[in-house]
Protein backbone atom coordinates (compact mmCIF):
# COMPACT_ATOMS: atom_id res chain seq x y z
CA UNK A 1 0.00 0.00 0.00
CA UNK A 2 2.84 2.40 0.92
CA UNK A 3 6.24 1.78 -0.61
CA UNK A 4 9.43 3.78 -0.12
CA UNK A 5 12.31 3.00 -2.47
CA UNK A 6 15.63 4.52 -1.41
CA UNK A 7 13.96 7.81 -0.60
CA UNK A 8 16.08 10.78 0.45
CA UNK A 9 14.85 14.21 1.43
CA UNK A 10 17.13 17.21 1.66
CA UNK A 11 15.58 20.47 2.82
CA UNK A 12 16.58 23.83 1.42
CA UNK A 13 19.00 24.40 4.24
CA UNK A 14 20.88 21.34 2.96
CA UNK A 15 19.82 19.30 5.96
CA UNK A 16 19.23 15.66 5.06
CA UNK A 17 16.03 14.76 6.88
CA UNK A 18 15.77 11.31 5.26
CA UNK A 19 18.55 9.23 3.81
CA UNK A 20 17.95 6.24 1.53
CA UNK A 21 14.85 5.07 3.31
CA UNK A 22 13.20 1.93 1.90
CA UNK A 23 10.25 0.01 3.31
CA UNK A 24 6.97 -1.48 2.27
CA UNK A 25 3.68 -1.42 4.15
CA UNK A 26 1.11 -3.97 3.11
CA UNK A 27 -2.59 -3.05 2.82
CA UNK A 28 -4.46 -3.27 6.11
CA UNK A 29 -1.21 -3.35 8.04
CA UNK A 30 -0.57 -1.18 11.12
CA UNK A 31 2.99 0.09 11.45
CA UNK A 32 4.58 2.30 14.08
CA UNK A 33 7.24 4.82 13.25
CA UNK A 34 9.57 5.97 15.97
CA UNK A 35 12.83 7.78 16.46
CA UNK A 36 14.37 10.67 18.33
CA UNK A 37 13.21 14.27 17.98
CA UNK A 38 14.24 15.47 14.53
CA UNK A 39 14.83 11.95 13.23
CA UNK A 40 12.58 12.54 10.21
CA UNK A 41 9.26 10.95 11.20
CA UNK A 42 7.10 13.91 10.25
CA UNK A 43 9.09 14.35 7.06
CA UNK A 44 8.34 10.75 6.08
CA UNK A 45 4.61 11.26 6.66
CA UNK A 46 4.72 14.56 4.76
CA UNK A 47 6.17 12.76 1.75
CA UNK A 48 3.28 10.31 1.73
CA UNK A 49 0.68 13.07 1.68
CA UNK A 50 2.62 15.20 -0.80
CA UNK A 51 3.32 18.10 1.51
CA UNK A 52 6.89 17.60 0.37
CA UNK A 53 8.49 15.89 -2.63
CA UNK A 54 11.44 13.51 -2.17
CA UNK A 55 14.87 14.69 -3.33
CA UNK A 56 15.68 11.21 -4.55
CA UNK A 57 13.90 7.86 -4.67
CA UNK A 58 10.34 6.76 -5.28
CA UNK A 59 7.25 6.89 -3.09
CA UNK A 60 4.41 4.65 -4.23
CA UNK A 61 1.05 4.94 -2.52
CA UNK A 62 -1.89 2.70 -3.40
CA UNK A 63 -0.10 1.60 -6.56
CA UNK A 64 0.53 5.11 -7.79
CA UNK A 65 4.00 6.59 -8.06
CA UNK A 66 3.58 9.95 -6.39
CA UNK A 67 6.08 11.57 -8.77
CA UNK A 68 3.38 11.26 -11.43
CA UNK A 69 0.87 13.10 -9.25
CA UNK A 70 0.77 16.70 -10.46
CA UNK A 71 -0.33 19.76 -8.56
CA UNK A 72 -3.93 19.45 -9.64
CA UNK A 73 -4.14 15.82 -8.56
CA UNK A 74 -2.95 16.50 -5.02
CA UNK A 75 -6.40 17.22 -3.52
CA UNK A 76 -7.80 13.90 -4.73
CA UNK A 77 -4.75 12.08 -3.39
CA UNK A 78 -5.12 13.74 0.00
CA UNK A 79 -8.80 12.97 0.13
CA UNK A 80 -7.98 9.28 0.18
CA UNK A 81 -5.75 9.71 3.22
CA UNK A 82 -6.77 10.53 6.76
CA UNK A 83 -4.14 12.44 8.73
CA UNK A 84 -3.73 13.33 12.39
CA UNK A 85 -1.27 16.21 12.55
CA UNK A 86 1.35 16.68 15.22
CA UNK A 87 0.04 20.17 15.98
CA UNK A 88 -3.66 19.35 15.48
CA UNK A 89 -4.22 21.91 12.69
CA UNK A 90 -7.84 22.67 13.53
CA UNK A 91 -9.81 25.59 12.09
CA UNK A 92 -9.89 27.88 15.11
CA UNK A 93 -12.80 29.91 13.78
CA UNK A 94 -15.11 26.93 13.33
CA UNK A 95 -16.91 24.66 15.74
CA UNK A 96 -15.76 21.14 16.49
CA UNK A 97 -18.60 19.84 14.31
CA UNK A 98 -17.53 21.94 11.32
CA UNK A 99 -13.94 20.86 11.76
CA UNK A 100 -14.82 17.21 11.64
CA UNK A 101 -17.29 17.73 8.80
CA UNK A 102 -14.69 19.47 6.62
CA UNK A 103 -13.36 16.41 4.76
CA UNK A 104 -16.93 15.31 4.03
CA UNK A 105 -17.88 18.75 2.74
CA UNK A 106 -14.85 18.76 0.50
CA UNK A 107 -15.82 15.38 -0.88
CA UNK A 108 -19.31 16.74 -1.56
CA UNK A 109 -21.25 14.53 0.84
CA UNK A 110 -24.87 15.26 1.49
CA UNK A 111 -26.07 17.09 4.53
CA UNK A 112 -27.72 14.13 6.24
CA UNK A 113 -24.78 11.87 5.55
CA UNK A 114 -22.40 14.41 7.04
CA UNK A 115 -24.45 14.69 10.19
CA UNK A 116 -24.49 10.97 10.79
CA UNK A 117 -20.82 10.41 10.13
CA UNK A 118 -19.59 13.37 12.17
CA UNK A 119 -21.59 12.21 15.17
CA UNK A 120 -20.19 8.71 14.84
CA UNK A 121 -16.60 9.97 14.60
CA UNK A 122 -16.93 12.33 17.56
CA UNK A 123 -18.51 9.56 19.57
CA UNK A 124 -15.51 7.34 18.91
CA UNK A 125 -13.11 9.87 20.51
CA UNK A 126 -15.53 10.64 23.35
CA UNK A 127 -16.30 14.22 22.37
CA UNK A 128 -19.88 14.04 21.11
CA UNK A 129 -21.01 16.37 23.92
CA UNK A 130 -18.58 19.10 22.79
CA UNK A 131 -19.89 19.11 19.21
CA UNK A 132 -20.74 22.82 19.19
CA UNK A 133 -17.70 24.01 21.14
CA UNK A 134 -14.95 26.07 19.51
CA UNK A 135 -11.51 24.41 19.41
CA UNK A 136 -10.11 27.26 21.51
CA UNK A 137 -12.28 26.22 24.42
CA UNK A 138 -10.99 22.65 24.38
CA UNK A 139 -8.09 21.28 26.34
CA UNK A 140 -4.97 20.17 24.47
CA UNK A 141 -5.97 16.52 24.59
CA UNK A 142 -9.48 17.28 23.44
CA UNK A 143 -8.13 19.19 20.44
CA UNK A 144 -5.96 16.25 19.59
CA UNK A 145 -8.98 13.96 19.68
CA UNK A 146 -10.91 16.29 17.38
CA UNK A 147 -8.03 15.95 14.96
CA UNK A 148 -8.32 12.17 15.19
CA UNK A 149 -12.06 12.29 14.56
CA UNK A 150 -11.47 14.43 11.48
CA UNK A 151 -8.89 11.97 10.18
CA UNK A 152 -11.18 8.97 10.41
CA UNK A 153 -14.54 10.54 9.54
CA UNK A 154 -14.28 9.83 5.81
CA UNK A 155 -13.16 6.24 6.42
CA UNK A 156 -10.00 6.67 4.37
CA UNK A 157 -8.06 3.73 3.03
CA UNK A 158 -4.86 5.07 4.57
CA UNK A 159 -4.54 6.65 7.98
CA UNK A 160 -1.45 8.58 9.03
CA UNK A 161 -1.01 9.83 12.57
CA UNK A 162 1.83 12.01 13.83
CA UNK A 163 2.19 11.77 17.59
CA UNK A 164 -1.56 11.23 18.09
CA UNK A 165 -1.23 10.69 21.83
CA UNK A 166 1.38 13.33 22.70
CA UNK A 167 -1.15 15.30 24.74
CA UNK A 168 -3.14 12.42 26.17
CA UNK A 169 -2.90 10.66 29.51
CA UNK A 170 -1.72 7.04 29.44
CA UNK A 171 -5.21 5.59 29.80
CA UNK A 172 -6.70 7.63 26.96
CA UNK A 173 -3.59 6.99 24.86
CA UNK A 174 -4.17 3.27 25.11
CA UNK A 175 -7.82 3.69 24.12
CA UNK A 176 -6.92 5.79 21.10
CA UNK A 177 -4.28 3.29 20.03
CA UNK A 178 -6.85 0.57 20.31
CA UNK A 179 -9.07 2.62 18.02
CA UNK A 180 -6.29 2.71 15.41
CA UNK A 181 -5.76 -1.02 15.77
CA UNK A 182 -9.48 -1.55 15.22
CA UNK A 183 -9.29 0.52 12.06
CA UNK A 184 -6.47 -1.58 10.68
CA UNK A 185 -8.67 -4.64 11.33
CA UNK A 186 -11.45 -3.30 9.08
CA UNK A 187 -9.16 -2.76 6.13
CA UNK A 188 -7.38 0.51 6.71
CA UNK A 189 -3.62 0.84 6.33
CA UNK A 190 -2.33 2.70 9.39
CA UNK A 191 1.03 4.39 9.97
CA UNK A 192 1.59 6.00 13.35
CA UNK A 193 4.57 8.12 14.39
CA UNK A 194 4.97 8.00 18.15
CA UNK A 195 7.44 8.46 20.97
CA UNK A 196 5.49 6.39 23.42
CA UNK A 197 7.77 3.39 23.22
CA UNK A 198 6.19 1.77 26.27
CA UNK A 199 2.76 1.84 24.67
CA UNK A 200 3.71 0.80 21.14
CA UNK A 201 5.99 -1.99 22.17
CA UNK A 202 3.10 -3.43 24.16
CA UNK A 203 0.94 -3.50 21.01
CA UNK A 204 3.35 -5.78 19.17
CA UNK A 205 3.05 -4.38 15.67
CA UNK A 206 5.87 -3.74 13.25
CA UNK A 207 8.00 -0.78 14.32
CA UNK A 208 10.10 1.33 11.94
CA UNK A 209 12.82 3.22 13.76
CA UNK A 210 14.53 6.27 12.28
CA UNK A 211 17.82 7.64 13.48
CA UNK A 212 19.10 10.84 11.90
CA UNK A 213 17.06 10.12 8.79
CA UNK A 214 18.18 6.52 8.37
CA UNK A 215 16.02 3.49 8.97
CA UNK A 216 17.59 1.29 11.63
CA UNK A 217 16.63 -2.29 12.38
CA UNK A 218 13.90 -2.64 9.74
CA UNK A 219 11.52 -4.31 12.14
CA UNK A 220 9.79 -7.34 10.74
CA UNK A 221 8.14 -8.44 13.96
CA UNK A 222 4.59 -8.71 12.62
CA UNK A 223 2.08 -8.33 15.39
CA UNK A 224 -0.61 -10.91 16.05
CA UNK A 225 -3.45 -8.40 16.26
Amino acid at each position, binding site marked *: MIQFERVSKRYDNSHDALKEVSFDIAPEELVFLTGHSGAGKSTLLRLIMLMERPSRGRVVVNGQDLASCGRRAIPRHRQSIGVVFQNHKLLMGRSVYDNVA*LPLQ*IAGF*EHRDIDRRVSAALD*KVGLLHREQAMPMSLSGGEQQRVGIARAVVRRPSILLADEPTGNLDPELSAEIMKLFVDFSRVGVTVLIASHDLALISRLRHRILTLRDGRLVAPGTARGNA
Partner: protein
Amino acid sequence: MATPKRSKGARPRRQSLLARWRGWQHHHGQSAAESLAKVLGQPLGSLLTWLVMGIALALPTGLWLMLDNLAAVSRNLDSPAQLTVFLDAAMDAGGATELARSVGGRDDVFSSQFLDRDQALASFVADAAMADLAAGLDENPLPHQLIVTPRSEDPEAVARLSAELAALAEVESVLVDTAWLQRLERLMRLGRRAVQILGALLLLAVVLVLGNTIRLAIEGRRDEIVIIKLVGGTDAFVRRPLLYTGLWFGLGGGIVAALLVTAGTLLLSPLVRDLAATYGSNFTLRGLGVIDSLQLVLLGAVLGLAGAWLAVARHLRAIEPR
Protein backbone atom coordinates in the same frame (compact mmCIF):
# COMPACT_ATOMS: atom_id res chain seq x y z
CA MET B 1 -15.79 4.55 22.65
CA ALA B 2 -17.33 2.41 19.96
CA THR B 3 -15.26 0.23 17.69
CA PRO B 4 -15.45 0.97 13.98
CA LYS B 5 -17.91 -1.11 12.02
CA ARG B 6 -16.42 -4.14 10.38
CA SER B 7 -17.82 -3.27 7.00
CA LYS B 8 -15.97 -2.82 3.75
CA GLY B 9 -17.22 0.75 4.04
CA ALA B 10 -13.88 1.69 5.43
CA ARG B 11 -12.71 2.71 1.96
CA PRO B 12 -13.76 6.16 0.86
CA ARG B 13 -16.83 5.54 -1.22
CA ARG B 14 -17.14 7.46 -4.48
CA GLN B 15 -20.22 9.62 -4.23
CA SER B 16 -22.89 9.38 -6.90
CA LEU B 17 -22.96 12.25 -9.37
CA LEU B 18 -26.30 13.49 -8.07
CA ALA B 19 -25.11 13.44 -4.49
CA ARG B 20 -21.96 15.31 -5.51
CA TRP B 21 -24.05 17.92 -7.33
CA ARG B 22 -26.23 18.38 -4.27
CA GLY B 23 -23.15 18.66 -2.09
CA TRP B 24 -21.62 21.19 -4.46
CA GLN B 25 -24.80 23.23 -4.44
CA HIS B 26 -24.92 23.03 -0.69
CA HIS B 27 -21.36 24.20 -0.34
CA HIS B 28 -22.13 27.16 -2.59
CA GLY B 29 -25.08 28.10 -0.45
CA GLN B 30 -23.05 27.59 2.67
CA SER B 31 -20.08 29.59 1.40
CA ALA B 32 -22.38 32.44 0.40
CA ALA B 33 -24.20 32.41 3.72
CA GLU B 34 -21.08 32.02 5.83
CA SER B 35 -19.10 34.72 4.07
CA LEU B 36 -22.12 37.03 4.30
CA ALA B 37 -22.45 36.25 8.00
CA LYS B 38 -18.74 36.97 8.44
CA VAL B 39 -19.04 40.23 6.54
CA LEU B 40 -22.07 41.30 8.56
CA GLY B 41 -20.58 39.90 11.76
CA GLN B 42 -18.00 42.69 11.91
CA PRO B 43 -20.30 45.50 10.85
CA LEU B 44 -17.87 48.33 11.41
CA GLY B 45 -15.01 46.79 9.51
CA SER B 46 -17.27 45.83 6.62
CA LEU B 47 -18.85 49.26 6.59
CA LEU B 48 -15.37 50.71 6.24
CA THR B 49 -14.65 48.50 3.27
CA TRP B 50 -18.00 49.31 1.74
CA LEU B 51 -17.43 53.03 2.24
CA VAL B 52 -13.98 52.90 0.72
CA MET B 53 -15.34 50.99 -2.27
CA GLY B 54 -18.44 53.13 -2.42
CA ILE B 55 -16.48 56.35 -2.47
CA ALA B 56 -14.13 55.00 -5.09
CA LEU B 57 -17.12 54.02 -7.24
CA ALA B 58 -19.15 57.15 -6.47
CA LEU B 59 -16.50 59.58 -7.62
CA PRO B 60 -16.19 58.41 -11.24
CA THR B 61 -19.95 58.04 -11.35
CA GLY B 62 -20.42 61.56 -10.04
CA LEU B 63 -17.97 62.91 -12.58
CA TRP B 64 -19.66 60.96 -15.34
CA LEU B 65 -22.98 62.49 -14.26
CA MET B 66 -21.40 65.92 -14.26
CA LEU B 67 -20.12 65.45 -17.82
CA ASP B 68 -23.52 64.13 -18.79
CA ASN B 69 -25.16 67.26 -17.43
CA LEU B 70 -22.59 69.47 -19.12
CA ALA B 71 -23.27 67.71 -22.39
CA ALA B 72 -26.98 68.37 -21.90
CA VAL B 73 -26.23 72.06 -21.36
CA SER B 74 -23.96 72.32 -24.36
CA ARG B 75 -26.50 70.53 -26.51
CA ASN B 76 -28.88 73.41 -25.76
CA LEU B 77 -26.21 75.85 -26.88
CA ASP B 78 -25.35 73.85 -29.92
CA SER B 79 -27.97 75.40 -32.19
CA PRO B 80 -27.40 75.51 -35.98
CA ALA B 81 -25.53 78.41 -37.53
CA GLN B 82 -27.45 81.67 -37.37
CA LEU B 83 -26.87 85.11 -38.80
CA THR B 84 -27.64 88.13 -36.72
CA VAL B 85 -28.36 91.04 -39.10
CA PHE B 86 -27.98 94.48 -37.47
CA LEU B 87 -30.21 96.95 -39.32
CA ASP B 88 -29.58 100.62 -39.85
CA ALA B 89 -30.33 102.58 -36.67
CA ALA B 90 -32.69 104.82 -38.62
CA MET B 91 -34.98 101.95 -39.58
CA ASP B 92 -38.26 101.61 -37.72
CA ALA B 93 -40.09 98.44 -36.67
CA GLY B 94 -42.46 98.42 -39.64
CA GLY B 95 -39.68 98.62 -42.21
CA ALA B 96 -37.74 95.96 -40.37
CA THR B 97 -40.68 93.57 -40.42
CA GLU B 98 -41.00 94.20 -44.13
CA LEU B 99 -37.34 93.44 -44.68
CA ALA B 100 -37.56 90.29 -42.55
CA ARG B 101 -40.33 89.01 -44.81
CA SER B 102 -38.38 89.74 -47.97
CA VAL B 103 -35.21 88.09 -46.66
CA GLY B 104 -37.28 85.13 -45.47
CA GLY B 105 -38.44 84.71 -49.08
CA ARG B 106 -34.91 84.04 -50.37
CA ASP B 107 -34.05 80.54 -51.61
CA ASP B 108 -31.01 80.18 -49.37
CA VAL B 109 -32.81 81.30 -46.23
CA PHE B 110 -34.69 78.82 -44.08
CA SER B 111 -36.27 81.37 -41.79
CA SER B 112 -35.92 85.03 -41.03
CA GLN B 113 -37.21 86.49 -37.83
CA PHE B 114 -37.56 90.15 -36.92
CA LEU B 115 -36.07 90.94 -33.55
CA ASP B 116 -37.24 94.22 -32.06
CA ARG B 117 -34.42 96.23 -30.46
CA ASP B 118 -36.09 95.81 -27.06
CA GLN B 119 -36.38 92.09 -27.60
CA ALA B 120 -32.76 92.10 -28.74
CA LEU B 121 -31.69 93.73 -25.53
CA ALA B 122 -33.62 91.11 -23.59
CA SER B 123 -31.90 88.26 -25.42
CA PHE B 124 -28.62 90.09 -24.99
CA VAL B 125 -29.31 90.11 -21.28
CA ALA B 126 -29.91 86.37 -21.36
CA ASP B 127 -26.29 86.11 -22.43
CA ALA B 128 -24.76 86.00 -19.01
CA ALA B 129 -21.73 88.16 -19.28
CA MET B 130 -23.65 91.09 -20.69
CA ALA B 131 -26.61 91.02 -18.35
CA ASP B 132 -25.28 93.60 -15.94
CA LEU B 133 -23.79 95.85 -18.53
CA ALA B 134 -27.24 96.03 -20.05
CA ALA B 135 -28.90 96.46 -16.68
CA GLY B 136 -27.00 99.70 -16.20
CA LEU B 137 -28.09 101.22 -19.52
CA ASP B 138 -30.80 103.85 -19.45
CA GLU B 139 -31.56 103.58 -23.12
CA ASN B 140 -31.31 100.64 -25.45
CA PRO B 141 -28.19 101.13 -27.60
CA LEU B 142 -29.06 98.27 -29.96
CA PRO B 143 -30.63 98.61 -33.43
CA HIS B 144 -33.42 96.37 -34.67
CA GLN B 145 -32.18 92.99 -35.81
CA LEU B 146 -33.10 90.06 -37.99
CA ILE B 147 -32.31 86.51 -36.95
CA VAL B 148 -31.71 84.65 -40.17
CA THR B 149 -31.37 80.86 -40.31
CA PRO B 150 -29.70 79.72 -43.54
CA ARG B 151 -31.08 76.71 -45.39
CA SER B 152 -27.60 75.18 -45.67
CA GLU B 153 -25.13 74.62 -42.89
CA ASP B 154 -22.28 74.73 -45.38
CA PRO B 155 -19.85 77.44 -44.21
CA GLU B 156 -19.31 78.76 -47.75
CA ALA B 157 -23.01 79.12 -48.44
CA VAL B 158 -23.46 80.84 -45.10
CA ALA B 159 -20.61 83.23 -45.90
CA ARG B 160 -22.12 84.03 -49.30
CA LEU B 161 -25.53 84.72 -47.75
CA SER B 162 -23.88 86.88 -45.10
CA ALA B 163 -22.11 88.98 -47.72
CA GLU B 164 -25.27 89.45 -49.78
CA LEU B 165 -27.26 90.53 -46.74
CA ALA B 166 -24.57 92.95 -45.67
CA ALA B 167 -24.73 94.54 -49.08
CA LEU B 168 -28.36 95.57 -48.53
CA ALA B 169 -28.82 99.27 -47.87
CA GLU B 170 -30.89 98.78 -44.76
CA VAL B 171 -28.31 96.52 -43.14
CA GLU B 172 -25.64 97.95 -40.91
CA SER B 173 -23.70 94.72 -40.36
CA VAL B 174 -24.06 90.92 -40.25
CA LEU B 175 -22.77 88.70 -37.47
CA VAL B 176 -22.02 84.99 -38.09
CA ASP B 177 -22.27 83.06 -34.85
CA THR B 178 -19.61 80.34 -34.97
CA ALA B 179 -16.41 81.40 -33.18
CA TRP B 180 -18.23 81.33 -29.88
CA LEU B 181 -18.78 77.62 -30.24
CA GLN B 182 -15.10 77.02 -30.82
CA ARG B 183 -14.40 78.72 -27.56
CA LEU B 184 -16.89 76.56 -25.69
CA GLU B 185 -15.39 73.54 -27.40
CA ARG B 186 -11.97 74.42 -26.06
CA LEU B 187 -13.37 74.82 -22.56
CA MET B 188 -15.13 71.46 -22.73
CA ARG B 189 -11.92 69.81 -23.92
CA LEU B 190 -10.17 71.12 -20.86
CA GLY B 191 -12.94 69.74 -18.66
CA ARG B 192 -12.88 66.37 -20.40
CA ARG B 193 -9.14 66.05 -19.98
CA ALA B 194 -9.41 66.85 -16.27
CA VAL B 195 -12.21 64.33 -15.86
CA GLN B 196 -10.24 61.72 -17.79
CA ILE B 197 -7.32 62.05 -15.42
CA LEU B 198 -9.54 61.88 -12.37
CA GLY B 199 -11.57 59.01 -13.78
CA ALA B 200 -8.50 56.95 -14.61
CA LEU B 201 -7.13 57.50 -11.12
CA LEU B 202 -10.40 56.48 -9.57
CA LEU B 203 -10.98 53.33 -11.59
CA LEU B 204 -7.46 52.35 -10.67
CA ALA B 205 -8.42 53.06 -7.07
CA VAL B 206 -11.48 50.78 -7.24
CA VAL B 207 -9.43 47.90 -8.55
CA LEU B 208 -6.67 48.50 -6.04
CA VAL B 209 -8.99 48.82 -3.07
CA LEU B 210 -10.63 45.56 -3.99
CA GLY B 211 -7.44 43.70 -4.70
CA ASN B 212 -5.97 44.92 -1.47
CA THR B 213 -8.99 44.01 0.64
CA ILE B 214 -9.18 40.51 -0.74
CA ARG B 215 -5.44 40.04 -0.47
CA LEU B 216 -5.65 40.93 3.19
CA ALA B 217 -8.69 38.68 3.60
CA ILE B 218 -6.62 35.85 2.14
CA GLU B 219 -3.74 36.59 4.46
CA GLY B 220 -6.13 36.65 7.41
CA ARG B 221 -7.40 33.22 6.41
CA ARG B 222 -3.98 31.78 5.74
CA ASP B 223 -4.25 29.10 8.44
CA GLU B 224 -7.69 28.11 7.28
CA ILE B 225 -6.57 27.80 3.68
CA VAL B 226 -3.58 25.68 4.65
CA ILE B 227 -5.75 23.33 6.68
CA ILE B 228 -8.38 22.98 3.97
CA LYS B 229 -5.69 22.16 1.44
CA LEU B 230 -4.20 19.63 3.85
CA VAL B 231 -7.40 17.66 4.16
CA GLY B 232 -7.80 17.57 0.39
CA GLY B 233 -9.70 20.75 -0.46
CA THR B 234 -9.44 21.67 -4.14
CA ASP B 235 -8.49 25.17 -5.22
CA ALA B 236 -12.11 25.75 -6.23
CA PHE B 237 -13.27 24.80 -2.74
CA VAL B 238 -10.83 27.22 -1.13
CA ARG B 239 -11.65 29.95 -3.63
CA ARG B 240 -15.42 29.81 -3.22
CA PRO B 241 -15.89 31.63 0.12
CA LEU B 242 -13.27 34.21 -0.90
CA LEU B 243 -15.10 34.95 -4.12
CA TYR B 244 -18.35 35.32 -2.21
CA THR B 245 -16.61 37.66 0.20
CA GLY B 246 -15.51 39.77 -2.76
CA LEU B 247 -19.04 39.66 -4.11
CA TRP B 248 -20.53 40.91 -0.84
CA PHE B 249 -17.97 43.68 -0.54
CA GLY B 250 -18.55 44.73 -4.12
CA LEU B 251 -22.32 44.63 -3.78
CA GLY B 252 -22.20 46.69 -0.59
CA GLY B 253 -19.76 49.10 -2.21
CA GLY B 254 -22.09 49.52 -5.19
CA ILE B 255 -25.04 50.25 -2.93
CA VAL B 256 -23.02 52.78 -0.94
CA ALA B 257 -21.86 54.39 -4.18
CA ALA B 258 -25.44 54.71 -5.45
CA LEU B 259 -26.48 56.29 -2.16
CA LEU B 260 -23.54 58.68 -2.16
CA VAL B 261 -24.17 59.83 -5.71
CA THR B 262 -27.87 60.34 -5.01
CA ALA B 263 -27.05 62.30 -1.86
CA GLY B 264 -24.53 64.43 -3.74
CA THR B 265 -27.06 65.14 -6.49
CA LEU B 266 -29.66 66.18 -3.94
CA LEU B 267 -27.20 68.49 -2.23
CA LEU B 268 -26.08 70.15 -5.46
CA SER B 269 -29.35 70.41 -7.30
CA PRO B 270 -30.86 73.45 -5.48
CA LEU B 271 -27.65 75.37 -6.14
CA VAL B 272 -27.68 74.40 -9.80
CA ARG B 273 -31.35 75.34 -10.08
CA ASP B 274 -30.61 78.78 -8.60
CA LEU B 275 -27.75 79.28 -10.95
CA ALA B 276 -29.74 78.16 -13.95
CA ALA B 277 -32.55 80.49 -12.92
CA THR B 278 -30.27 83.52 -13.08
CA TYR B 279 -29.64 82.60 -16.71
CA GLY B 280 -33.35 82.29 -17.29
CA SER B 281 -32.95 78.56 -17.82
CA ASN B 282 -35.04 75.93 -16.11
CA PHE B 283 -32.23 73.42 -16.35
CA THR B 284 -32.22 70.90 -13.47
CA LEU B 285 -29.40 68.56 -12.49
CA ARG B 286 -29.98 65.08 -13.84
CA GLY B 287 -29.42 62.51 -11.07
CA LEU B 288 -29.03 58.74 -11.10
CA GLY B 289 -32.16 56.91 -12.21
CA VAL B 290 -33.35 53.59 -10.76
CA ILE B 291 -31.87 51.63 -13.65
CA ASP B 292 -28.60 53.54 -13.40
CA SER B 293 -28.46 52.85 -9.67
CA LEU B 294 -29.07 49.15 -10.22
CA GLN B 295 -26.36 49.11 -12.85
CA LEU B 296 -23.99 50.79 -10.42
CA VAL B 297 -24.75 48.15 -7.78
CA LEU B 298 -24.25 45.43 -10.37
CA LEU B 299 -21.00 47.03 -11.48
CA GLY B 300 -19.87 46.99 -7.86
CA ALA B 301 -20.71 43.31 -7.57
CA VAL B 302 -18.91 42.45 -10.79
CA LEU B 303 -15.87 44.48 -9.80
CA GLY B 304 -15.93 42.82 -6.38
CA LEU B 305 -16.01 39.38 -7.92
CA ALA B 306 -13.34 40.29 -10.46
CA GLY B 307 -11.08 41.84 -7.84
CA ALA B 308 -11.49 38.78 -5.63
CA TRP B 309 -10.70 36.49 -8.55
CA LEU B 310 -7.55 38.42 -9.40
CA ALA B 311 -6.35 38.55 -5.81
CA VAL B 312 -7.15 34.87 -5.33
CA ALA B 313 -5.36 33.89 -8.53
CA ARG B 314 -2.32 35.90 -7.48
CA HIS B 315 -2.08 34.92 -3.84
CA LEU B 316 -3.72 31.55 -3.31
CA ARG B 317 -0.98 29.54 -4.98
CA ALA B 318 1.58 31.02 -2.66
CA ILE B 319 -0.16 29.48 0.33
CA GLU B 320 0.97 25.90 0.51
CA PRO B 321 0.81 23.74 3.60
CA ARG B 322 4.07 23.26 5.47
